[in-house]
């Protein structure tokens, strides 16, 4: 063994002799070295602190955003009501209580001047101009009260009606001085209360912020999402299967892949332009309709599903394919019996995330005209509709201050939906995640 070792002394002498003069051991304990190390550690701490600051800044921004939105939004779910005493026998209203019990009730009420009655009652109760304390939709509450109990037509009755925006704001936060004063007077008289606003969840758009609701936009969103899902999911999954399992390596496949990767990164507004040019101007599909919105968003969501699907399919180990092929399954059977079921949780997770993105999308839908003022919920896929994010955009443009809290409330609803969807995606991922 020894014989195989070359003489180390001879070997070392050659470079060693030249260097030994240069070489002196580093004095790590010297003052200069110590202070240098201290400086380096200080730099280390600074850098680490910067990193933490960056994370905390992002978190702080998110918190600030959420707190602002929720703080404003909570108020949007409530509304202020005023107790309006109406002396029906003394009013100008000519209504036969008997007619209101029959099937003709709606028609009878439609003919009655409830608006005038409510206005007059307000003027009587709260002095000249009292009508302005009420919401434009106050008479609707009166109508409902009469429908519920026609007997009140024969007596004096106190009916809670929605208050005007000014009073509403005065009750919840701050408003113009006149409104604050009026609110104070009402409060002294015990004629004002603030409660849950069910109308916000059941009504559609309106010009009066005390009457608006999000159900119209929400329904539009749901219809649009149904169309998007029905188109994007099958097409996306099938494309992913083709590209991952069958596609031959050639120029066509490359082209498909490049297309999908680029579509996933194309700005959403471009899809809006596509929808406008192709679906509306070329194919003459109806404007503002959920079906066009759904088509446009499906084109946008499909690449996301393809990419997520391919990753999920890729993670299914080849051994499973080999096993199935080995017992004589055809390539189609292998994929549909084995690969697809195993990849499905991953594909679903990707689909939900893509759908969540589509649900929050605004710009392409503006292009295809889903920004119209729609005061009743859409009843079908081809009816004019709007969607939640567009509704938020429209309300944010309103001058009336009452819309601020409504916009925030709509944002809260939208965020809740997105949170639920993303939560579901995370749950699916954790529940079905398989480590191969």
């Amino acid at each position, binding site marked *: 063994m*020894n014989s195989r070792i070359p003489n180390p*002394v001879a070997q*070392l002498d050659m470079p060693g002799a030249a*260097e030994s003069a240069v070489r002196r051991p*580093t004095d790590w304990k010297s003052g200069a070295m110590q202070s240098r*190390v201290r400086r380096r550690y200080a730099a280390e701490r600074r850098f680490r602190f910067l990193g933490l600051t960056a994370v905390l800044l992002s978190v702080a921004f998110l918190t600030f955003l959420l707190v602002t939105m929720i703080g404003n939004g909570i108020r949007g779910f409530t509304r202020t009501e005023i107790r309006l005493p109406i002396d029906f026998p003394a009013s100008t209203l000519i209504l036969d209580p008997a007619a209101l019990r029959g099937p003709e009730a709606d028609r009878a009420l439609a003919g009655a001047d409830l608006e005038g009655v409510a206005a007059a009652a307000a003027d009587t109760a709260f002095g000249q101009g009292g009508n302005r304390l009420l919401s434009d939709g106050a008479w609707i509450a009166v109508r409902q009260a009469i429908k519920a109990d026609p007997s009140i037509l024969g007596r004096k009755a106190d009916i809670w009606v929605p208050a005007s925006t000014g009073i509403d704001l005065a009750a919840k936060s701050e408003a113009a001085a006149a409104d604050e004063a009026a609110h104070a007077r009402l409060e002294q008289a015990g004629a004002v209360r603030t409660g849950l606003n069910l109308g916000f969840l059941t009504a559609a758009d309106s010009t009066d912020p005390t009457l608006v609701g999000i159900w119209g936009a929400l329904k539009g969103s749901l219809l649009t999402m149904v169309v998007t899902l029905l188109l994007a999911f099958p097409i996306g999954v099938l494309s992913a299967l083709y590209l991952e399992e069958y596609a031959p390596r050639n120029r066509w496949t490359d082209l498909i892949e490049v297309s999908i990767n680029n579509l996933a990164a194309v700005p959403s507004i471009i899809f809006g332009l596509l929808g406008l040019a192709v679906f509306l101007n070329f194919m003459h599909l109806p404007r503002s309709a959920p079906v066009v919105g759904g088509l446009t968003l499906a084109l946008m969501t499909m690449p996301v599903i393809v990419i997520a699907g391919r990753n999920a399919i890729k993670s299914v180990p080849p051994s499973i394919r080999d096993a199935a092929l080995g017992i004589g399954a055809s390539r189609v059977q292998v994929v549909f019996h084995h690969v697809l079921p195993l990849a499905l949780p991953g594909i679903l997770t990707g689909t939900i995330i893509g759908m969540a993105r589509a649900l929050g999308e605004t710009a392409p839908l503006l292009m295809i005209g889903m920004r119209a003022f729609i005061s009743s919920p859409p009843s079908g896929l081809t009816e004019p509709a709007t969607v939640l994010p567009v509704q938020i955009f429209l309300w944010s443009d309103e001058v009336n201050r009452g819309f601020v809290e409504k916009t925030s409330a709509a944002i809260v609803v939208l965020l809740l939906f997105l949170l639920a969807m993303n939560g579901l995606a995370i749950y699916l991922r954790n529940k079905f995640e398989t480590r191969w």
Partner: protein
Amino acid sequence: MNDDSFGRITGDPNAAPRLTTKMTARGVNVFYGEKQAIKDVSIDVTQEHVTAFIGPSGCGKSTFLRTLNRMNDTVASARVEGEITLDGENIYSSSMDVVQLRARVGMVFQKPNPFPKSIYENVAYGPRIHGLASSKATMDQVVEKSLRRAGLWDEVKDRLHDSGTALSGGQQQRLCIARAIAVDPEVILMDEPCSALDPIATAKIEELIHELRGRYAIVIVTHNMQQAARVSQRTAFFHLGTLVEYGDTSEIFTNPRETRTKDYITGRYG
């Protein structure tokens, strides 16, 4: 360089004294979470010798090597017990600065890992962060000296500003050795430095280890027993996290005391 160490390898009993112990480990235990990877290992590393750690894979030899310059600190779940000293100073004590420790105890890894920088910058990296070269001229000198010592200078002197990753595997590993030498360490730890290299490159590295011996205390982990026999004077055999036997390489390979050592060396398992 003294000839005493040589005498010792050849088994001359009179040549024992005047050895300097560079590092000592006493009762070292290493845990990864709940799992104990090293059990009560005590060992001395001497200045003049190349010490080889051998043993079957998973026996803890690399883990133990990494405790010697506290590289286990970078693994969140790792915990080290016991005492390891460098020149008599406990390296796990709070007064020991880990940054300086690692400059004094350099390390060469299993896979060559040059930084994606130029050859020059790779070597200059250590002196730069530790502030060991005050001027460009000194730095040039340090780089040249280190590359010369690593036996790489003649091969790369005309392309110092090419990327270090463009070199061949063996050259990359010698670059990594040059990089470690550049900060003038006292001990060099080598974690299977040749396992990713071809036989010719391996021979060059082994030759280099001979040349560096004596100037630095060298500890080398290897799974290749022939390599341990070729390059080391002292050999430690690890098995299942314990140090089974430690002694002169010639002793271990020709006349092991423990049957486990014998079984491993004769290829009974591993």
